[in-house]
């Protein structure tokens, strides 16, 4: 590892909602970030960033950046604000909150954040201690991967699984529901390296994503049917006599029950549901079992339909059936963050939460604001940071209606007047990545990543954590943690004494920018070679007797009361989507097309989708549609089209392509509502999937019509 060569260079960590968490180097002149590049010494970043981050500094100094605290002066949503001082802004917030607390109690206030910044200090959980101390409604945040977490924890426990870097040793790689080329680029480079060394790369996705096009084999199940495919793979592994019986006998639990369940889930059965030929399913099963080491990389999209949790239960059972875990580069990868040593109880302070505090899930914020949920205390104020629900959450029209209510006091800490901040009563200018010290968590590799405060914030912007420090002081919160500096937070938030941190401390991070956790190396890590799953039994749990539904702690402020709690099927199985022509023919009469809404290549969620050159690169909102479906609707290439269902509508440009099969349309996420007509989430359902209150973004029927 090199140290920085110039005094004007600082280590950065990409704070965006992406598994790659790149180590970066900021070039700073006269206190201004002039450029950014990938850290060439980082084994995953390898000196390259991505289309979003390559000119990261431009976002910091964008002319539309919010520079001062502001108070709304026009109607909600009019984007009419006046500049006020920080003291005035904070006094007004505290005064309004005190009034609300006096009238309704603290649960009338809800925090709303997500991974708009992935820092330990300023990110997902940065405000949790503050709002837990207040006694506010706990916000359950399940945008992305939380159903997957529940299924993963039930099956294999909190393991990082296969090191993404170990894929260079894999001979068979399955990328399941992940468009790595656009959303996990630095892992894709490793997959390509393995491919050059002879590995076969299989991509399973319901449309021909950029990644699928680069695969040796693209398997294309109908949306929401991956669980049927996975169950049939299990069936076929057993049927073809390819089970590693020694591994199963010693390191798994519930094989006989799984075998019984899978016995009727034949490739022929799955073929009817998925559209994948039965022989292809047998071939996939055979190759997954015999081409070792075989590794499966699941993407967050795998959970985004009604049966998402069960799908991941099934998929994460496969490596234990085949004994893939015996090998370096064999097994499955979900989120390596499970082996990152963070002290979430210190970060979130769940001990401060009053007993019986109500929970609202952030996907259903529209329903909550409109009084459609059975809440003990109605929501009268929301503070939103690191998140933009109007663009990113489902049932957008309900959210907008809720945010327009004069009865709601909305505080937004933001970089720009986003689609959500447009409705704020008070807007607070938040610092951006290079302007504040933090360490950035990664759900895609096994490195700690440091981000130095490299430049001052423009205007009067301050870091999120400073906002909460100031609010805590004004509310008289005396707990020590509300007085910690950002550096002190880092000292306290990471378990530096854990074995994974051997030889690493904060000074090391400052000096080196990143540090590999001591959890084995890419060349020797085989964490479950002999079982050792971090489950209660120490085994891979095919069957989990008595399992109930829950959301993992970091996604609900570490609050463990009032979990969903409903009983779960102890065994993996296929749970059909709610909205598909096969399962809901009545709805499909009106809305016959399934829509998938993956992330845009050129945006990061809604970040960058307000920047002219990024929009130019990404292109305007498009709707990919098959020639068959286009012809049936008299749609030609480039036509303006409306995509609609019972929940809402958005507009885009038709792109007729063979990349989607008949019956499916694809429109990517992130475009701003204020720059477009609706967004893809206007049509998304806020119904949860089967586990972890995950979103059902890929379980929606729509109709497409020509509008020009």
């Amino acid at each position, binding site marked *: 590892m090199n140290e920085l060569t110039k005094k004007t260079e600082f280590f950065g960590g990409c704070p965006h909602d992406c598994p790659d968490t790149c180590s970066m180097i900021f070039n700073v002149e006269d206190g201004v970030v002039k450029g950014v590049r990938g850290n060439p010494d980082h084994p995953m970043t*390898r000196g*390259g960033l991505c289309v979003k981050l390559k000119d990261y500094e431009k976002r910091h100094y964008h002319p539309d950046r919010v520079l001062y605290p502001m108070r709304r002066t026009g109607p909600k949503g009019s984007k009419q604000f006046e500049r006020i001082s920080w003291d005035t802004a904070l006094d007004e917030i505290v005064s309004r909150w005190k009034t609300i607390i006096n009238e309704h109690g603290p649960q009338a206030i809800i925090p709303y954040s997500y991974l708009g910044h992935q820092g330990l200090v300023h990110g997902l959980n940065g405000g949790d201690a503050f709002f837990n101390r207040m006694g506010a409604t706990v916000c359950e945040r399940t945008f992305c991967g939380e159903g997957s977490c529940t299924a993963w924890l039930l099956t294999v426990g909190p393991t990082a699984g296969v090191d993404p870097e170990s894929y260079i040793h894999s001979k068979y790689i399955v990328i399941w529901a992940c468009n790595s080329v656009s959303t996990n680029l630095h892992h894709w480079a490793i997959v390509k390296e393995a491919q050059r060394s002879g590995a076969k790369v299989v991509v399973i996705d319901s449309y021909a994503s950029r990644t699928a096009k680069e695969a040796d084999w693209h398997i294309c199940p109908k949306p929401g049917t991956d669980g049927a495919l996975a169950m049939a793979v299990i069936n076929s592994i057993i049927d073809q006599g390819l089970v590693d019986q020694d591994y199963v006998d010693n390191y798994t639990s519930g094989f006989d029950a799984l075998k019984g369940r899978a016995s009727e889930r034949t490739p022929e059965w799955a073929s009817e549901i998925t559209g994948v030929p039965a022989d292809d399913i047998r071939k996939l099963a055979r190759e997954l079992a015999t081409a070792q080491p075989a590794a499966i990389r699941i993407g967050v999209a795998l959970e985004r339909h009604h049966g998402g949790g069960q799908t991941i239960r099934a998929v994460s059972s496969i490596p234990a059936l085949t004994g893939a875990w015996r090998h370096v580069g064999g097994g499955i990868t979900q989120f390596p963050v499970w082996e990152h040593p963070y002290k979430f109880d210190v970060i979130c302070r769940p001990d401060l939460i009053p007993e019986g505090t109500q929970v609202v899930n952030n996907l259903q914020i529209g329903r909550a604001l409109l009084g459609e949920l059975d809440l003990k205390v109605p929501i009268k104020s929301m503070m939103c940071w690191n998140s933009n629900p109007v663009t990113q959450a489902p049932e957008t029209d309900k959210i907008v209606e809720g945010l327009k209510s004069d009865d709601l006091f909305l505080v937004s800490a933001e970089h720009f007047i986003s689609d959500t901040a447009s409705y704020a009563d008070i807007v607070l200018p938040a610092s951006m990545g290079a302007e504040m010290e933090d360490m950035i968590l990664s759900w895609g590799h096994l490195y700690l990543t440091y981000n130095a405060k490299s430049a001052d914030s423009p205007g009067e912007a301050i870091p999120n954590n400073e906002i909460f420090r100031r609010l805590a002081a004004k509310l008289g919160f005396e707990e020590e943690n509300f007085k910690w500096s950002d550096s002190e937070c880092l000292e306290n938030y990471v378990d530096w004494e854990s074995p994974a941190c051997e030889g690493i401390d904060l000074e090391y991070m400052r000096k080196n920018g990143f540090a590999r956790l001591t959890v084995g190396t890419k060349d020797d890590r085989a964490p479950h070679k002999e079982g050792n799953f971090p489950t209660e039994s120490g085994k891979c749990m095919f069957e989990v007797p008595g399992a109930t539904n829950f959301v993992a702690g970091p996604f609900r402020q570490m609050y463990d009361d009032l979990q969903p709690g409903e009983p779960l099927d102890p065994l993996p199985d296929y749970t059909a989507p709610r909205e598909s022509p096969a399962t809901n023919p009545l709805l499909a009469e009106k809305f016959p097309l399934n829509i998938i809404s993956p992330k845009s290549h050129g945006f990061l969620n809604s970040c960058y989708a307000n920047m002219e050159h990024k929009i130019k690169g990404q292109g305007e909102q498009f709707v990919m549609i098959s020639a068959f479906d286009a012809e049936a609707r008299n749609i030609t290439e480039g036509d303006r089209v409306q995509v609609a269902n019972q929940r809402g509508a958005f507009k885009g440009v038709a792109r007729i392509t063979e990349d989607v099969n008949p019956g499916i349309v694809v429109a990517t996420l992130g475009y701003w509502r204020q720059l477009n007509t609706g967004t893809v989430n206007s049509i998304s359902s806020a119904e949860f999937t089967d586990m972890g209150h995950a979103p059902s973004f890929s379980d929606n029927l729509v109709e497409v019509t020509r509008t020009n």
Partner: protein
Amino acid sequence: MPHIVTDNCQSCRFTDCVSHCPVECFHEDDERLYINPDVCVDCGACIPACPVQAIYDVVDMPEDKEPWIKVNAERSKNLPVIMSKQEPLPTAERRRTELGL
């Protein structure tokens, strides 16, 4: 909106770009390299790697480079992928000097 290799690559073919590309989008002939616009992910990692500043983002390039968009798109379709860095052409250093780089 991809990246493109332009005229400075001619007679150089340093190929440092290839080892910085995460997606194998470079194609080669004996003279120079071309970027497949359908595979390029616009990460920009290749731009600083090129010793002769031959690579541009089409969103941000001089107007006189525009013809290279078509050249890259057409030529890359029929040429093999180059997967690793190779020796520059014998004329590379002379060409670099001529270019003042």
